[in-house]
């Protein structure tokens, strides 16, 4: 008789403005204080008394702390050393104020005070034998739901954020960037030593944005957490856009060898249908730029920031369109394609219309730096093991 009474009054004192609250009679709860139950109208046969134990003197957190091994100190001690780790659970889940092990009707608490002009008194209800089981079920369902992780897009690998999409950058004023897409290239922790806090951790994110039509840019964002860093980087990258020329909207104009710091990238022009066969960072950047067919090889340092920098340097500064070449040389640029029977196709002529009279000297030894792999490929001695592998769109 005394236990449910105590429970009810305590609950009211804590949750004044809630009709249904979680409460518990025997097990420890969040509430620590216990009130006396002498102010009730119901005549009691037994003397009011205070059941005092550590169980109702301590808070739930304090009790749990005694049972679990939390923190590095407790882990080393005996009680946390179990194969199956116990976890802290809120035992108030599923409990309704006024309902308890001994089923009672409390008018004004779990029943109306009066119906049809008749004031109800405190009554005993029938015990529900399923009550315990239902409580456990409800608690388990709550924790199961909580432990379920949000499904996120898979990037290059399952574990890291690299390669995942961030959507389009935020609008600047009225200018929206709906046709742009941002992709994560790298997220990593960086540390700074400060005078007060010592080793201070922040997250650095490298993001590339592009509209797949030649406009693209990249930026680094730094913040206390990854989400903010990514957002910063994404919105910074649209402010630093490059326009990259593409040949027939699918590949680069010519073979490019470019160096930035200790990173060297070898890019080779390819036919339609070849695909992007290069480092995953180059694939992602290439997709967002709008390149479809290219061979690329990263030599030297594989630092992601260096690779992106080097790639953009090569495409913007080292690349020359056919028109620029024709203007520079004052000659026609003529294309010969095997699939078109090697018929001459004039792809660019000098824009001022003045074609030079003397032809370009064709020495026996061409003035290009040879690459061993390229020569071997031409002679059929080497074939890339990645050649002809089908890559699905989402990997980029």
């Amino acid at each position, binding site marked *: 008789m005394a236990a449910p009474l105590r429970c009810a009054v305590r609950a009211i004192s804590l949750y004044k403005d809630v009709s249904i609250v979680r409460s518990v009679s025997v097990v420890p709860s969040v509430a620590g204080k216990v009130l006396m139950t002498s102010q009730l109208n119901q005549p009691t046969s037994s003397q009011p008394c205070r059941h005092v134990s550590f169980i109702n003197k301590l808070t739930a957190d304090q009790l749990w702390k005694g049972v679990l091994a939390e923190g590095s100190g407790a882990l080393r001690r005996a009680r946390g050393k179990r194969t199956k780790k116990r976890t802290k659970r809120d035992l108030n889940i599923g409990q309704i104020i006024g309902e308890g092990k001994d089923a009672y009707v409390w008018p004004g608490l779990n029943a109306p005070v009066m119906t049809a002009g008749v004031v109800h008194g405190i009554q005993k209800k029938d015990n529900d034998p399923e009550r315990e089981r239902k409580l456990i079920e409800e608690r388990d369902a709550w924790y199961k739901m909580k432990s379920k992780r949000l499904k996120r897009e898979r990037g290059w690998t399952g574990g890291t954020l690299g390669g995942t999409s961030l959507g389009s950058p935020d609008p600047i004023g009225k200018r929206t960037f709906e046709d742009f897409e941002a992709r994560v290239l790298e997220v990593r922790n960086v540390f700074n030593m400060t005078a007060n806090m010592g080793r201070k951790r922040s997250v650095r994110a490298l993001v590339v944005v592009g509209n797949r039509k030649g406009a693209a840019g990249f930026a680094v964002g730094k913040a206390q957490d990854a989400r903010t860093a990514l957002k910063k980087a994404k919105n910074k990258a649209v402010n630093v856009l490059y326009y990259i020329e593409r040949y027939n909207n699918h590949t680069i104009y010519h073979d490019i060898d470019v160096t930035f710091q200790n990173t060297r990238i070898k890019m080779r022009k390819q036919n339609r249908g070849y695909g992007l066969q290069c480092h995953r960072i180059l694939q992602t950047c290439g997709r967002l730029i709008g390149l479809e067919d290219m061979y690329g090889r990263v030599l030297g340092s594989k630092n992601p920031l260096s690779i992106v920098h080097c790639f953009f340097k090569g495409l913007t500064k080292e690349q020359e369109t056919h028109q620029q070449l024709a203007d520079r040389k004052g*000659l*026609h*640029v003529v*294309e010969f394609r*095997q*699939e078109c029977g090697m*018929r001459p196709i*004039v792809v660019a002529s000098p824009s001022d219309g003045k074609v030079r009279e003397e032809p370009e000297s064709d020495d026996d030894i061409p003035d290009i730096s040879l690459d061993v792999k390229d020569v071997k490929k031409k002679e059929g001695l080497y074939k890339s093991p990645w050649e002809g592998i089908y890559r699905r769109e989402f990997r980029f």
Partner: protein
Amino acid sequence: MAASRTILSGCRRCVRSWLDSRRCSPSLSTRGVRLCSSSPGEADSDPSKPTPPDFFDPAVQSILVQITGVDLEKVFHQVRAKVDPPTYKLMTEDQLKKAFGETVQRASEKLQMPPVLGERVPIDPTPIAKNPELEGLDTSNFVFTDISQNIPDRERFIVVREQDGILRRATWEERDRLLQVYFPKEGRRIRPPPLFQEDHMDIVLEADRHVDLLDLCCIQFEPDSPDFIRIHQRVYEDVFHEKKYRLLRSTRHFGGLTWYLTRNRKVDDLLVDMLQLDLADDAVQLVRLYCMLHPDSQSAAQITQNNLQGLDIVKMFAKCDAVKGGVVELAVQAYQAGQTGTEQADTS
């Protein structure tokens, strides 16, 4: 034996010798196998009546080549192949002109027309020997082929021993099959693919793949075989009815198409098509070809009599011999109006 051997033969040397031996009977010579171009009127017995020239006549050939035209983009159209990335060259005007000249030369080689021949004379089915004692020796025929390397395929000696003991010469169809077994040609099958059946050809022609069909036909069949002639005529008829002349223009089959249409007096639509595409010279040449092939026609006589030049020839043709004279005349007028319009625009 010697005569039948020469019937089998198809090379220039043998055809010429065979023609010489048969000079007395011109009716046979026109039906015979002719792969070489000979001077016109070689087998002409009656000099007073002009005979039409054959397909290999130089005058005819020059007209057909001119009408075909060389569209480099069409001749060297993009094909599906595993190729290296393109190469680039920096060229002056002279070098570019030279490169284009070389390409046109290569294109004209690619545009060499498949020969238009009469149907081949069936091989004499009379038995060489009859051996009734061999009857029932086996359940199938035996074919004996001379597979010496230095004999032309058409002169090869191939005989069949029938189940009833008769030894005879192999028919043309048997010869084609067996030669493909011993001396396989790339792309040719022993049995023709079902693509060449009538109802299957309709599907191909609906998809505008006339050129592919004709190319495959040239690979599969000999140019004087009945199938070759049948398929070509079927495609030409489809082109004529659907007016899809653009499909065959600037391909090696346009000459054959023009030859067929001119022989069968079906050139009206082609003339209109040429005039609509501003190819007036081609139209004039086509009418000239018509006059060559039909020397007894009214327009031929009128043109030689009045010594007409230029579009007047086409007008005369529309007046005298055209099936759709009004349409052709309208097309000529439209062309002339367009020409004067552009001239005025140029001067102003």
